[in-house]
């Protein structure tokens, strides 16, 4: 499976700002080492949006934590690299690592309330960041904090800067988180389920805000989500994760129009649509796999509707389902990738 790793699904001629290469992470548990990530490779380009799509336990958040240097024991990296502008963060000095993961790569989490300090006003928290990282004076930092709150469209920003996190609604709190993430004008923004906890009208506001700021700052955006609707509306490229691996990758249009992995296909069929009525939903049978004691073949095989004998013994590599048509940058980890892609399996 290594043949594809050096040649990821690039859709942009510019070099990626962030590259994850063959990343593997394990969690040590009482029952043995749990492989949370196995050989994950991703490219993030300036001004473009990569969606990391997956269900709970698929490894999408672990990927984000590892990139940010937030992976704590019992989790540990067992292989691969995280390249920021070509330099490996996993082998960088602690100082360089801190600089990059604070200033160049920023993250927004789902739960803004637990990410903000409850005993400081939001203005103080943003100003503190600017003073520590940018060496700004107290007054300048406070003024810049208000500007940032205004930039994320918080009404009456000068007043709200003096409020504590609990005084904000969920949507406004997420805006504060975005203001904090953007305070240092990062190159890459990782948004880990940024709208999942929000109401649908607020979700739309927050996604719009993130996309506007992405354009303004020419940021690379990694959007971690389980929501196929959000992916369809904002992503340029999509990586679908299952059981710690990327099982399919491609541009959003290719992947939604003709999935090349049975898991992606199953997901797309199993969601109801707000704009039409279907009589029955396709349901992927079974439950997500346990990462412990995994069988040798494809992790999706027990739930797959296109499974053949080979799938239970040999793990499929992540390769292009259309090796003969140049220009496509699809990847699928399925033994029957060509048949699935063309609707024959």
């Amino acid at each position, binding site marked *: 499976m290594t043949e594809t790793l050096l040649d990821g699904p690039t859709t942009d001629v510019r070099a990626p700002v962030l590259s994850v290469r063959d990343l593997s992470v394990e969690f040590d548990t009482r029952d043995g080492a749990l492989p949370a990530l196995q050989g994950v490779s991703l490219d993030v380009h300036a001004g473009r949006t990569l969606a990391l799509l997956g269900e709970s336990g698929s490894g999408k958040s672990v990927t984000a934590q590892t990139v940010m240097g937030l992976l704590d024991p019992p989790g540990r990296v067992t292989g691969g690299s995280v390249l920021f502008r070509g330099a490996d963060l996993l082998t960088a000095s602690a100082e360089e690592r801190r600089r990059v993961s604070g200033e160049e790569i920023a993250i927004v989490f789902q739960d803004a309330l637990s990410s903000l300090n409850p005993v400081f006003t939001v203005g103080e928290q943003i100003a503190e960041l600017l003073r520590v990282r940018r060496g700004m004076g107290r007054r300048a930092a406070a003024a810049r904090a208000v500007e940032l709150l205004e930039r994320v469209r918080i009404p009456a920003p000068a007043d709200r800067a003096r409020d504590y996190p609990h005084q904000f609604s969920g949507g406004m709190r997420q805006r504060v988180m975005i203001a904090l993430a953007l305070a240092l004008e990062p190159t890459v923004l990782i948004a880990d389920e940024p709208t999942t906890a929000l109401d649908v*009208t607020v979700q739309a506001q927050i996604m719009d805000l993130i996309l506007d700021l992405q354009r303004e700052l020419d940021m690379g955006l990694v959007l971690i989500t389980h929501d196929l609707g959000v992916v369809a509306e904002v992503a340029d490229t999509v990586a679908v994760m299952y059981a710690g691996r990327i099982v399919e990758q491609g541009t959003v249009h290719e992947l939604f129009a003709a999935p090349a992995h049975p898991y992606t296909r199953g997901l797309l069929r199993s*969601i109801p649509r707000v704009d039409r009525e279907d009589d029955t939903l396709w349901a992927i*049978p079974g439950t997500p796999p346990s990462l412990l004691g995994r069988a040798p073949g494809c992790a999706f095989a027990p739930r797959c509707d296109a499974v053949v004998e080979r799938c239970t013994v040999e793990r499929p590599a992540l390769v292009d389902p259309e090796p003969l048509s140049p220009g496509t940058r699809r990847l699928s980890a399925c033994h029957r990738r060509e048949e699935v892609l063309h609707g024959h399996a």
Partner: protein
Amino acid sequence: MAMPDVVLSVENLTKHFTARGSLLRRSPHVVRALDGVSFDLRASETLGIVGESGCGKSTLARTIVGLERPTAGRVTLRGEDVHAARGRDLRVLRRRVQIVLQDPYTSLNPRRTVRDLLLQPFEIHRDLLPRARREARIDELVELVGLNPDHLDRYPFQFSGGQRQRIGIARALALEPEVIVCDEPVSALDVSIQAQVVNLFQRLQRELGLSYVFIAHDLSVVRHISDRIGVMYLGKMAELGDRTDVYDTPRHPYTSALLSAVPVPDPALRGTRSRRLLEGDPPSPVDPPSGCRFRTRCWKAQDVCATTEPPLTAPDPREQAFACHFPMTQPATTAS
């Protein structure tokens, strides 16, 4: 007054919660969680209820099944007032209306096996089934919801989220209810498991003739499973009608805005759907706006909206009812 096929009737249901005043705030708050909601649920029908946080949909669920007493209004099950019943009558009524919650993990006692959990309803309603036949009934229930009968002696934590929801559903079905109130029953589940549970609800409805009040914030799931849909905003019903009418030609501006904010999982449609982004968050139910409660976020609002509350009516009885002075005239997709 109730039509013969109406199973459950909710009339002017109102629930106010009083938060006591504190040292600094002497007057008590009144949270108007539910403020005069009415609808009928017909036999073998699914009525979907959608709305954002604070709209009162969970209070509605809890009040229907009797977990809350209404401040005003009533809930009747085939003509009998659910909240007026006492003693034996109350037990019988309660058995006929069950609830399924979002996260069965928090509603299932972690120290009891699935078998114990499924036996519990029969211990409360002792007269329903003789002890000797309860185990057989449990086997039936487990098969009905697609759980492995070999797992009956396991504990809730040994199950995945989807399987736990099946346990919750089996428990709700134990007493053979007519109505199940589902409060966000699939929101905590992974996408691939959601479809399994939605399909299970639909199969059970066909096989057992159940009626559902299906409450969820996921507008796509609600459209899929419901026959009719009610849209709630700040404790009131803003729009109520057939799912296709409500979703394809919404008349209340709130419904229209809500639907337009839902992302559609088809990148080919990107940019073709116009969206109306609502500003801000819903106001607090402690001090809701006068007149129409949506007016503070509504782009069509005029003076009358602040002074006169629009009633929920259906000008054309073949179409949906809505509560708006200046309703939408076009489908949401062509409004801008």
